[in-house]
């Protein structure tokens, strides 16, 4: 198990120069650090529109009425405060390799810090529970990657439309498309981040093995792993990734793939992951 305290400390330190990048649309809120695309209560003038019965008379532009005898309302841009849902896959496959686990924890910590830097509200969704505000990091520290699979990935919230980030390995035999559709709906942005270890991408095993799925004790398969078997495995993995990417594109989001080391992520891997987030325009420098 990775040294989580050290990991979180490093993540916070590395996240200081960064803030969450403004996406195309943010969730509406009473006030926030980002200007929304809709009409709101900020001081930034946005547009005029004709008065309609029931409109707040305080927003009528009386000066314009004096000139034109037409009643128009002054519209101001809304102010949004980003709500970022970090959905963390805590299935056993995510904990099969220390690199994946530490990368997932680092990504969640880093994104939460970046959200806070953008005056947003990070929400951790793990093990079917929601943790917001001050409960985010304690809950993250308690996460155990030993779940049975997708069932441990929390359902999306039904509240404020958030920016939704799903950190998983997406090693689901099927159902990826439905998951993307569900996560993308009702959110202002959905960013699936896929973590795969080096061994998962290019297995180095050779010989006769009894394969057992880490998430299903009943799923056992005897086979002899040779070059042909590995080639077939890679072909299936490639098809799986392509299918997931097609599904993600269909729902207007891009699937971010990140290859983690088998062992625990070091500083260089963390910096590379940050660079990856910057490159993917998920965070930006303050």
């Amino acid at each position, binding site marked *: 198990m990775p040294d989580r305290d050290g990991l979180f400390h490093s993540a916070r330190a590395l996240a200081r120069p960064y803030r969450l990048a403004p996406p195309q649309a943010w969730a509406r809120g009473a006030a926030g650090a980002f200007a929304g695309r809709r009409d709101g209560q900020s001081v930034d003038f946005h547009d005029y529109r004709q008065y309609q019965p029931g409109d707040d008379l305080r927003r009528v532009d009386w000066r314009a009425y004096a000139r034109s005898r037409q009643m128009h309302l002054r519209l101001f841009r809304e102010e949004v405060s980003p709500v970022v849902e970090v959905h963390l896959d805590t299935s056993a496959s995510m904990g099969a390799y220390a690199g994946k686990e530490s990368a997932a924890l680092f990504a969640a910590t880093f994104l939460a810090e970046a959200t806070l830097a953008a005056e947003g509200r990070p929400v951790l969704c793990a093990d079917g529970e929601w943790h917001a505000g001050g409960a985010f990091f304690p809950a993250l520290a308690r996460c155990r990657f030993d779940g049975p699979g997708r069932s441990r990935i929390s359902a999306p919230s039904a509240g404020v439309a958030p920016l939704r980030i799903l950190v998983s390995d997406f090693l689901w035999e099927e159902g990826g498309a439905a998951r993307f559709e569900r996560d993308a709906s009702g959110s202002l942005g959905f960013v699936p981040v896929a973590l795969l270890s080096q061994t998962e991408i290019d297995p180095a095993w050779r010989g*006769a093995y009894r394969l057992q799925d880490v998430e299903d004790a*009943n799923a056992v398969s005897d*086979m*002899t792993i040779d070059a042909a078997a590995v080639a*077939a495995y890679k072909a299936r993995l490639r098809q*799986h990734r392509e299918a997931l990417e097609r599904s993600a594109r269909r729902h207007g989001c891009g699937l971010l793939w990140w290859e983690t080391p088998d062992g625990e992520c070091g500083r260089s891997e963390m910096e590379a992951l940050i660079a990856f987030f910057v490159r993917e325009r998920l965070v930006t420098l303050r």
Partner: protein
Amino acid sequence: MTNLFFAAPAGLAALAALGAVIVLYLYRRRRKPLAVTGLFLWGRPRQQKAGGRKRERLIRSRSFWLDLAAALAFVLAAGGLSWRSEQAPLVMVLDDSFAMRARDGHEAARQAAASLFAETVGRGGRIAVILAGERPAVARAMTAATRSEGENLFAAYDPVSRGGNLSAAVALARGLYGDGNDIHVFTNQTDTTSLHGVVAGAVHRVVGAGGNAAFTQLWRYADPEHPGRERLAVSWRNYADIPAETVVTVAAEGEEGRLLHREPASLPPGGTGSFEVEIAGAADAAWRIEIATSGNDVIAEDSFAVLPPQPKAVVTYAVDGLSPAAERSVALALDAAGAKRGVAADLLVTHSDRDDGQTLVIRVAEAVRPGVVTPPYTVDYAAQLCRDVDLSGVAWVAASPDVPERIDEVYIAGGGVPLLWRTGRERFFLNMAIEASPVVNDPAWPVLWTNLAKHCLERLPGLRRTLYRPGEPIRFNHGPERQALQLRDDRGDAVAFSSLTPRKAGAYALLAGTEIAGQIAVAPLYGGASDTTILCDKTETLRLKGRAEGEALALDLRAWCLAAALLLLFVNWRLARADAERGDA
């Protein structure tokens, strides 16, 4: 009668192998465990592990069933699984003794058996034919289920054995098909009491009063007491095991068959008849002598033309200082004299015996035309080669008087002409034009050949077969040179095998087509076999195996079981390999 049976029930102890397979699968494949994420990427899971059990539950996979089936097939093979028809076949025992060749003998047996078979086939039955020779044998076709198969089976019925042991054949039939099966015996033997109470079926007597009589001696000679008259000595024998009413007739050829003599005789089984008679009035003609049995049934094989006695044309001229011209004129004169006697085809003039250097004695020997040598024969029965050789009344056709000067030992001679002799230590010569000689059709021929083969057996370890049948197809290779086998007859013409009857071709092959050809040579005048290297490609024994061979009638499924087991193992291995290639564990 059951369908399936085990020839080796003890082999069923191998059933334990099935348990072993199951145990192996219970504890099978102790592979290194490997935790993987996304097992579905490695292919379809082949087995489900029951959680919480120390011992794995039985994996009833495709591989398991294939291995189990293979083990079962091995067990069945070890047990000697065999199959035989549920419906008992109609078992026919055909007397294979040579006596059945008597007129109407084997034909009647064949027809009777064929009609019985036709009746059986009409009921959807099958037949099995056992030949009752000296030792019983299952007919080569073994069993037949259709009319055409039956006809082929009976067409091959050609009795040549020196005896017919019906009891042994019936015992073989009972051993093969059980005691309760009907067995039909076709024979001409009169004494079938040994079969009473043994055969559940019928004994078909296929020959009535007829028989199988053959000449044992034909001798036409000039009466020494009455010049100008000739005498004929004839002896014949009833080879059948039933009494035969025989009539020997002598007729003159070329005179519309004028009857010269008629001699009836009733011969018991194995009995011999003989007569010697003076015949006048047909001195220059050939006499045709035939045996008729019970009416006008003439045995064609025992109908011979007996030529007039050859004159002793050895004349010695004592001349003094014979010039070549005189020699030629003498030769011409003798040639003319010989032509007048009708035997002048080949006059042989030899120069010899220069007595005193002054007188040249010219011996003009009559050239016996290579052709018929009639009995009696001189047979050295003390020699192993001549054991049981009974030349009966057969004429030795086309024997050559031109024999090598060196002859170490003569085994058979006739008319003063050596017919079988030995030169050197192990080189035998047979003075015979095989394609023309009826000897190869005689029962004595396979006996003679068997003796020859046995004689050479010790020096030819690769040769195992010693008993041949005339007419039996003999396969052989043409040797390394792959030259077409060409034999030459007494006129130097090539004899092609295709122009020979199968029987004579077989006789050729007996001599020329075996390794023994190196040991036994046809006299060079009559064949070039000694120049041709021909090797046998098959050394099989014709000695009957009795029950062992008969058991082949029951379909032995052991080989099939073994093949099935190997096939199942191969399929299992191939599928596993294909799975591995696909990564589809």
